[in-house]
């Protein structure tokens, strides 16, 4: 029927009641929209302000902070560190998760419970705790890696892998990957051909979603970067330094505003892509099922 789910509950109400509740709905959603957008507007104004003293709007506008920030070598290097960190995290996670998830579906079901318990760890335990533990552990086993990029990549890969796992595993379930690879085998495909021509193309939405989510998780991660990435300069670490510089003489807040907006833009693009790839549907199930986690991060 042409009836749709959204209309059904309201179909049989009197006109005035419907108008009232529609008005209330618009108000509610308007408030929600403002709630999301006003802080961003404030940050935007901050990034464009010459000085902002006691008025509702800045005293004057300028593009100097944008120019200065984009030209700042330290910020450039922080962005390049964060982007390579996040890219490596996403690549490593995809590289280790896909074979494990695939094998747990086609050969060894025993892998699944092990991975699922592991995937619950970054959820149950705050990143501060994991980061601190990792610092202590690496101090015991491999002190020379402390404070290095390599260790931070490994840490990020470990805390971001559940996003990739749920996305990929969900995509495999949706594609019916067991049947597909059996069919491919029956057609005489080698395992490598099966992987490249059948498995990967059919789970591409999961790969993209998982990759984007783990990228986002790593890009904005602060606790672990602060605890085990000492000496490195990522975007969140730079921001933390700026926000703690109490004297706002050098325009550090204005530059922080620019960086915050840039970070926000990165997130915006990433989640637009995620929503696009999943066609407006919610995708994955949380550990234990029943709920979804679109890119959860602290």
């Amino acid at each position, binding site marked *: *029927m042409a*009836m749709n789910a959204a209309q059904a509950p309201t179909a*049989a109400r*009197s006109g005035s009641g419907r108008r009232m509740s529609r008005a209330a709905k618009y108000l509610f959603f308007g408030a929600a929209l403002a709630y999301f957008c006003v802080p961003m507007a404030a940050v935007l104004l901050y990034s464009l302000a010459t000085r902002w003293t006691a008025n509702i709007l800045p005293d004057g506008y300028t593009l100097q902070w944008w120019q200065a920030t984009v030209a700042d070598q330290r910020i450039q290097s922080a962005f390049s560190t964060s982007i390579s960190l996040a890219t490596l995290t996403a690549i490593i996670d995809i590289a280790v998760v896909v074979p494990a998830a695939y094998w747990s579906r086609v050969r060894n079901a025993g892998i699944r419970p092990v991975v699922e318990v592991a995937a619950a760890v970054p959820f149950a335990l705050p990143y501060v705790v994991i980061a601190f533990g990792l610092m202590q552990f690496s101090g015991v086993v491999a002190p020379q890696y402390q404070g290095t990029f390599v260790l931070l990549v490994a840490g990020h890969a470990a805390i971001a892998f559940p996003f990739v796992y749920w996305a990929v595993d969900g995509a495999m379930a949706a594609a019916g990957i067991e049947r597909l690879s059996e069919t491919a085998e029956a057609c005489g495909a080698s395992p490598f051909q099966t992987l490249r021509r059948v498995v990967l193309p059919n789970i591409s939405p999961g790969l993209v979603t998982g990759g984007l989510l783990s990228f986002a998780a790593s890009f904005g991660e602060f606790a672990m970067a602060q605890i085990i990435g000492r000496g490195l300069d990522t975007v969140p670490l730079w921001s933390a330094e700026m926000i703690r510089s109490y004297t706002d003489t050098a325009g550090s807040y204005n530059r922080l505003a620019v960086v915050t907006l840039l970070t926000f833009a990165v997130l915006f693009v990433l989640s637009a892509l995620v929503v696009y790839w999943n066609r407006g549907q919610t995708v994955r199930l949380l550990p234990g099922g029943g709920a979804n986690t679109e890119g959860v991060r602290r």
Partner: protein
Amino acid sequence: MSGVNLVGVTKMYGQVKALDHVSIDVCEGELLALLGPSGCGKTTLLRCVAGLERPDRGTVEIGEADMTAVPTRDRPIGMVFQNYALFPNLTVRQNIAFPLEVRHRPRRAISARVDELLDLVHLTEQANRYPKQISGGQAQRCALGRALAPNPEVLLLDEPLSALDALVRGRLRDEIRRVQQLVGITAIYVTHDQSEAMAIADRVAVMNSGRVEQIAAPADLYEMPATQFSAKFVGSRNAVELAVRDGRVGIPGSFHIDAPAGSNGHALAFFRPEDVVVSRGDAGRGMEARVELKVFLGATTRLHLVGDADGQPIAIFGDLPSRQARLIDEGETVRVDVDPDHVHAFPI
């Protein structure tokens, strides 16, 4: 108890006319089946009676009262949904009691009435189970009990059997008919399955793209479909296009009937496979046809026959008792005849 009168009911979804001036009188105590393919408007019509949809034009009367603007909860109806729609957090007993509790009936009266209904739909033993713990057939009987609990004047059933498997379906269909007749309630039954509609209904309304094509008792509908659509939908598998000659249409060597009024050069003739008479050799009469394929269906065997009507090949399905069909080989030429009384022709 009372009937339902629908007058000129019209419903639009954007540009699509889901219902186009539908007028039906459902008599008191009658079971009327709304039959049609998906998207024909039958469910929308039922939902208009329930008040879950508001018609754009037309009126809905139950008994003598105009119900068009009355909200669902104030209509004297009970309804059975396609997917049961049992409340999962309530037991079978609580589900049946729900409409009575909502109406604030005294507790003792509720308990007695629920017992009565549990007995009526044979669910006394499952009374304390949750919907998740019972079978589909039991769930739908529970839904029937819930619909009947407050003694509604009209019972609405929206494809109640379509979620069930074939075996349960037939049993529950007869069960619903039994209960409906026992209670003597007016009922409207939506289905897309013509055999189900014929088996259960006093009258069948055939619907197509928002309009009623024909309303008739099952036997009449079967024998005398009023329109092409009815004919096709109630199972005339053979639809043969024939040229009109001298106001007559027919198959050479077999039937010839008067061309339908308004036909213009060609007409479409409908007849059932079981009304096709197939005979071997020269003794038989009718058109010569080749047996292209035999399909064994159990008691009967369906022959795919291709004959020749004035240079035009025509394809006909013919059903034969399987024992008889065994004697006929694929590729053989046979004679095919149809009783003109069983042919319904419509203008193209």
